[in-house]
């Protein structure tokens, strides 16, 4: 369970998040949507402390992420993250990318890590790419490897920061398919996305952010058919 309580974030003088509170249960798939610059990514990054919340508190299970004395590295081991720009390690092969964290952080032996990496590559449909370097992959393939790399840590939840925004249109589908599989397997997922079709189909709940405020927190059907706020209505009119 993730509990976000009254979180605000300032970059200098600019307030990018204002008093966000919500809870996400285990197994829930939540998408965060909203206009550019509304603070979606910042909120996501506060959860694994890539950004530090300026005010408020965040818990994951019974551990407070926002506690300055917390061992954040230990918490991050349990939270997978997928980035807009993939961030595969370019000097390692696909298999090495996936094996690295299990070897170094989980202390698995080489054979174990290799078996795990191969099974994950198979899961994302790239078992023939294990010796390729990231430069040789298409954007969609890179993102699938990045998902496999995150899953190799056997995380309890996954954060996705606009995972399809840097992809050519024809590659969006293959990545979303992998994410959909993952959602159906019961993984807790928080996804910042502009893919409204995907959000509507896969999410249990939509969080709509605008100008740093959590304006709407609703199941997809309600959000897409009868949003309560004017701002959500405006947003939906523009993009649908």
């Amino acid at each position: 369970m993730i509990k976000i309580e009254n979180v605000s974030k300032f970059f200098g003088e600019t307030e990018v998040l204002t008093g966000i509170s919500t809870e996400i249960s285990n197994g829930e798939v939540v998408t965060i949507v909203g206009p550019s610059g509304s603070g979606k990514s910042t909120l996501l990054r506060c959860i694994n402390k890539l950004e530090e919340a300026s005010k408020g508190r965040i818990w994951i299970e019974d551990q407070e992420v926002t506690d300055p004395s917390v061992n954040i590295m230990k918490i991050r081991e349990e939270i997978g993250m997928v980035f807009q720009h993939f961030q595969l390690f370019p000097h390692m092969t696909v298999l090495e990318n996936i094996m690295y964290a299990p070897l170094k952080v989980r202390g698995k032996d080489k054979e174990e890590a290799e078996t795990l990496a191969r099974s994950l590559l198979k899961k994302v449909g790239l078992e023939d790419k294990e010796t390729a370097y990231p430069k040789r992959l298409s954007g969609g393939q890179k993102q699938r490897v990045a998902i496999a790399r995150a899953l190799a840590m056997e995380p309890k939840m996954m954060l996705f920061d606009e995972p399809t925004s840097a992809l050519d249109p024809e590659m969006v589908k293959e990545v979303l398919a992998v994410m959909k599989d993952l959602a159906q397997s019961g993984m807790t997922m928080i996804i910042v996305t502009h893919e409204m079709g995907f959000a509507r189909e896969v999410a249990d709940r939509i969080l709509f952010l605008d100008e740093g405020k959590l304006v709407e927190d609703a199941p997809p059907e309600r959000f897409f058919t009868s949003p309560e706020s004017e701002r959500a209505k405006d947003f939906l009119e523009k993009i649908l």
Partner: protein
Amino acid sequence: MGLDFSQIAPSFPYILKGIWVTLQIVAVSAVVGFFIGVILSLFKIGKFNVLRWFADAYTSVFRGTPLVLQLMLIYYGLPQVIGFEIPAYLAAIAAFGLNSGAYVSEIIRAGIEAIDKGQKEAALALGIPYSEMMKDIILPQAMKNILPALMNEFITLTKESAIVTTIGALDIMRRAYIVGGQTFSFFEPLLFAGLIYYLLVMGLTLLGKALERKLKQSD
């Protein structure tokens, strides 16, 4: 008048022996300089103000004063303080290593800072500790980008090593100078020394190119 290489021909082997001395000094100082450079660059990008200040001050001093002065301070000056003589060879390594460290640290710092900060975030998000991240993720990528600059630094070091002549180490330069003094003809031995330095630098350049190709494997 005119050039007469035949009269210094018997001294060629004597001058050539200097290659070994020069290479030893350059190779050891390059390694020392590289390690100092790595450590200082980590200080510079780290979060400890004291270490950052130290690394900046170090770089500023070693880049802001002549290398020949640093060399003489160590060879002629330091024994006055520590009470015993330092062999020319060691003094040369100390001066070049310390000096090169300052330049190398700037090269590596720039190399690290040029790497997408998303790489660091990806490593952090996986729970990879800072030291492992630096060693396995950030530095290997930085090294690839800075190899040309690093090679350049080693080439400079090879040429600059000729100033050990001033403290009497028997390198290529010193030997050419001695032969010149003995035969009363400086032009030929110095030209010969020049040729040797040039070939050494060419060798290093080719080595650098080969290394670059190897590191480009992942492209």
